[in-house]
């Protein structure tokens, strides 16, 4: 394939990924509000469209039309760069997930590491946004969320490495083939649990949403943002939830493998199941305190994931 064609394909799939994430955010926000309402015995949004189904569309239109306010003492460059550096890596990480059918993205030799490395850039964006706003809440929120992110990155990486050990490859497509008979959740249940819980922390969702703890930090690092710039943070959160769920489905649930239905459908089904669990947890569990959060990462998940390495090595020997 000529390079021009590859470039055009990249452009197209990038645009598709951005559009899908945008549409998905609309769907997920509505789902989240409806599911949350059901769990808490409310009805949720009802007025825009039938059963409130057009509510998030209206919200999105409103958001892009809102005034773009920037605090007078904010650092203009960092204030603008912050939301972009949070949203762009979250979407970029989708480039290695094999969706099957027409949406096979890119099979990199080091796809698994790419998926773990690129969202790490988000931390820089969080810190810049919090610092640039010149606001105490933003500053604390930026520091806290980045400390949380880096703390959970290590147990998460150590959980993913066990899958790489069994599959013998860092390519996401090879991982898919390696699970054609048995999905890895059967062989590595503990790795899956560690991955799932630390991923919730990586995308800042309850019970790990300390940076956005409304009762103490207003809205954390995005307190001072409004309109479309604020929407970018929101987009990043749902892009992160989507990417982590799709990657989890790929690593542990056999991705697009499944009988009868096409691969795309299987992957979407498995991803949606994981995303639903994420939403369910949000309305079930209370929020952790900052010190509990850090203790859990370093004194529970890190030792556990090191022990899990040994367990996975034994499983690997047993399978081979």
């Amino acid at each position: 394939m000529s390079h021009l064609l590859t470039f055009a394909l990249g452009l197209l799939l990038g645009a598709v990924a951005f559009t899908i994430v945008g549409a998905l955010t609309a769907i997920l926000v509505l789902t989240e509000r409806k599911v949350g309402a059901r769990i808490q015995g409310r009805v949720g949004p009802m007025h825009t469209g039938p059963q409130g189904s057009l509510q998030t569309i209206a919200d999105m239109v409103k958001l892009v039309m809102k005034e773009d306010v920037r605090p007078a003492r904010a650092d203009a460059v960092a204030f603008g760069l912050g939301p972009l550096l949070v949203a762009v890596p979250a979407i970029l990480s989708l480039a290695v997930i094999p969706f099957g059918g027409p949406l096979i993205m890119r099979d990199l030799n080091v796809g698994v590491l790419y998926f773990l490395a690129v969202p790490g850039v988000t931390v820089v964006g969080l810190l810049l946004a919090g610092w640039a706003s010149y606001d105490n809440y933003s500053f604390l929120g930026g520091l806290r969320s980045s400390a949380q992110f880096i703390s959970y990155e290590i147990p998460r990486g150590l959980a993913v490495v066990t899958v790489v050990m069994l599959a013998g490859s860092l390519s996401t497509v090879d991982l898919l083939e390696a699970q054609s008979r048995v999905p890895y959740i059967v062989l590595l249940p503990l790795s899956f649990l560690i991955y799932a819980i630390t991923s919730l922390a990586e995308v800042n969702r309850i019970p790990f949403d300390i940076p956005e703890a409304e009762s103490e930090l207003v809205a954390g690092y995005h307190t001072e943002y409004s309109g479309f710039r604020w929407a970018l943070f929101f987009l990043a959160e749902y892009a992160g939830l989507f990417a982590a769920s799709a990657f989890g489905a790929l690593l542990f649930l056999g991705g697009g493998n499944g009988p009868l239905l096409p691969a795309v459908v299987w992957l979407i089904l498995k991803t949606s199941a994981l995303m639903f669990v994420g939403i369910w947890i949000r309305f079930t569990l209370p929020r952790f305190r900052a010190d509990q959060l850090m203790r859990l990462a370093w004194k529970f998940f890190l030792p556990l994931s090191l022990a899990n390495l040994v367990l996975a090595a034994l499983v690997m020997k047993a399978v081979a």
Partner: protein
Amino acid sequence: MGGMYLSDVVFLLGFALAVVSLPVFTLAAFSLLRPRHPESLKGEAYESGMPQASIPRRPFHMAYYNFALVFIVFEVETLLIFAIAPVLRDAGWWGLGEVASFVVMVTLGLAYAWRKGALVWK
């Protein structure tokens, strides 16, 4: 072989260009439709309706820095395990023992940081 890496880079550049330019374009395009009513109060930092009590850019406690330091060490260790993970299947018990000794050293580092109280959040 080299050609594959080149086309990976070309693909990722295209992907990144689309993902960066779409939000920037949206932000720029809607600036024509957005209201703009600058007012001095809007420029104030939000502090629950009060005037800002203290400036945020002042020295802050170092626990964050300790965590970041320990994080980098463990990150490098994780990546080294990633480097050997794909071939571990074929490495035999001897290879596993070599990796185990590496993991033991990682664990010793964790135990040291734990003992010294660097993992306590204050």
